[in-house]
């Protein structure tokens, strides 16, 4: 099952709509609640990143039998130093964005924490592609 959501860059009043919409689908599909929470958290953080930094983006979701895969691709400034961006507390958010409550520097680390696999690639002045997966069956 494939789902597609548009994300408008810089549109703060709509930030979260895509990930909330995704959540609704997952609930109707009966995805286990803890999985929903993890996917919802990661998707929300990814969406907010596009809104805060990029011009526009897409969220594409593939729901398979073993896992949910999410790809968030955007057209925007890109990430200069990915390793630095992954550090907790590091943010390049401008003051007006921080005033709105975003830019805590925890977005990417939160995505990593909530997912089973994550891949982040970027080209400066072009855009960023983030992919992550959450598996259904959890290995104990």
């Amino acid at each position, binding site marked *: *099952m494939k789902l597609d959501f548009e994300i408008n860059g810089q549109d703060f009043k709509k930030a*979260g709509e895509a*990930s*909330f919409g995704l*959540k609704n*689908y997952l*609930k*109707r*599909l*009966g*995805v286990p*609640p*803890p999985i*929903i*929470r993890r996917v*919802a*958290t990661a*998707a*929300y*953080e990814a969406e907010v990143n596009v809104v805060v930094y990029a011009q526009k983006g897409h969220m594409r979701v593939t*729901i398979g*039998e073993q896992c949910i895969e999410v790809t968030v691709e955007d057209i925007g400034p890109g990430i200069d130093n990915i390793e630095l961006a992954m550090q907790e507390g590091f943010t390049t958010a401008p003051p007006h964005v921080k005033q709105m409550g975003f830019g805590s520097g925890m977005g990417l680390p*939160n995505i990593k924490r*909530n997912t089973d696999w994550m891949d982040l690639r970027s080209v400066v002045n072009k855009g960023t592609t983030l992919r992550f997966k959450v598996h259904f069956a959890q290995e104990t």
Partner: protein
Amino acid sequence: MESLLYLKADRCRACTHCMRACPTEAIRIRKGKALVMEHRCIQCGLCLMACPYQAWDVRTKTLDEIGKKERPVAVLDPTVLWQMGMGVGLEELNEAFLKIGFQEVHDWSEALGTYGRALEAYVGSPEAPRPAISSTCPVVIQLIQVKYASLLENLVPMVLPMHIAATAWEETYGEKKPEAKLYYIAPCLALASAVKDPLFSHPRYGGAFRFNSLFNRLKAQGRSKGQRMNPQASLLFRIEGVKWATAGQWSETLSFGKTLVVDGLRQVAAILDYVESGLLEEIHLIEAWSCPLGCLGGSFLTQNPHIARFHLKNFLRENHGILREKEAARTIESGCWKRYRFPQMPLPRPGIRLDEDMARAITKLKKIDAITKKLPGIDCGACGCPNCLALAEDIALGVAKESDCRCLKEKGRRRG
């Protein structure tokens, strides 16, 4: 939770008001009558309030049903104090209940205080999730069971205050009065239904009364003009009891400070959406109520909730000194909340889930998407579903047909 709600079919005219009012889309019109899908019902009572023909009714108790031998004991919801107008004092209220047929009115202000301290102990403990979500409103609990199952682990795992009231009564009078039964004087459908639910309540309850079903009789017992609420009177005089009637009053006095108060079901859902997406983790407690202004907004009450709240706040202001004393003397024993733990955690309900098996659910979702494209999208309700998406879903689930859509039928007739 077993529902007390039922339809008086002869009064139902399929006007669709209740169907549109339902926040979980649990109602359908089938064969000209409203029907509720219990797995989606969260007992908010909006259907009851929306019906212009009083077709929805509730199986609460009536005084005629209760035999004298039963020795019924009234347990008043804290909101009841604010329903009679300021002219009625506490002792008078107490007396009025005795005059209409109750054996006794249980003073459970102590139990409410205990609940408050236990809740504070829990939220302050290292085991508490962030944010913790209050579990005093059974509608909020059921909303979470139906639509936000991933947040069940955030609920404060404590029984309802009405349970603690019954435990306290049992400890004092249980042996001396074996035939006596407790009856909750309820402000709303959810609390009235909770009384008989083993997860939330206590076996000593015989059932619940709707406050508004007793109001006229209580009023008829006469009143002496000018008698104000006497804070020293035994019935619910303790401030903790009074504060539970409305949203936010109680949590204002908590020691840890970071509480978010939200009332009104749509607002509660919006906040829960944020929590589910990983936000609001700096908040200790979300105090959530389905009704506007908290329980004072309950549908079985008679007084306008804002007027009731006005009187309540005046009372708190006038008794500010006593309040401060009580709070200074309060001790919170960490771990005391464990005595009041849920016997088991509330489980998720199937709710909006399309199928138990995900592969089948995906097939149904694809079918729904395909059918939705054919439907007009005007959500007229004539098919008996609250909106076109719900009809598409019902068709995919095999409980409705495309021919139920009047618009499609009309289009087909015009073409042919």
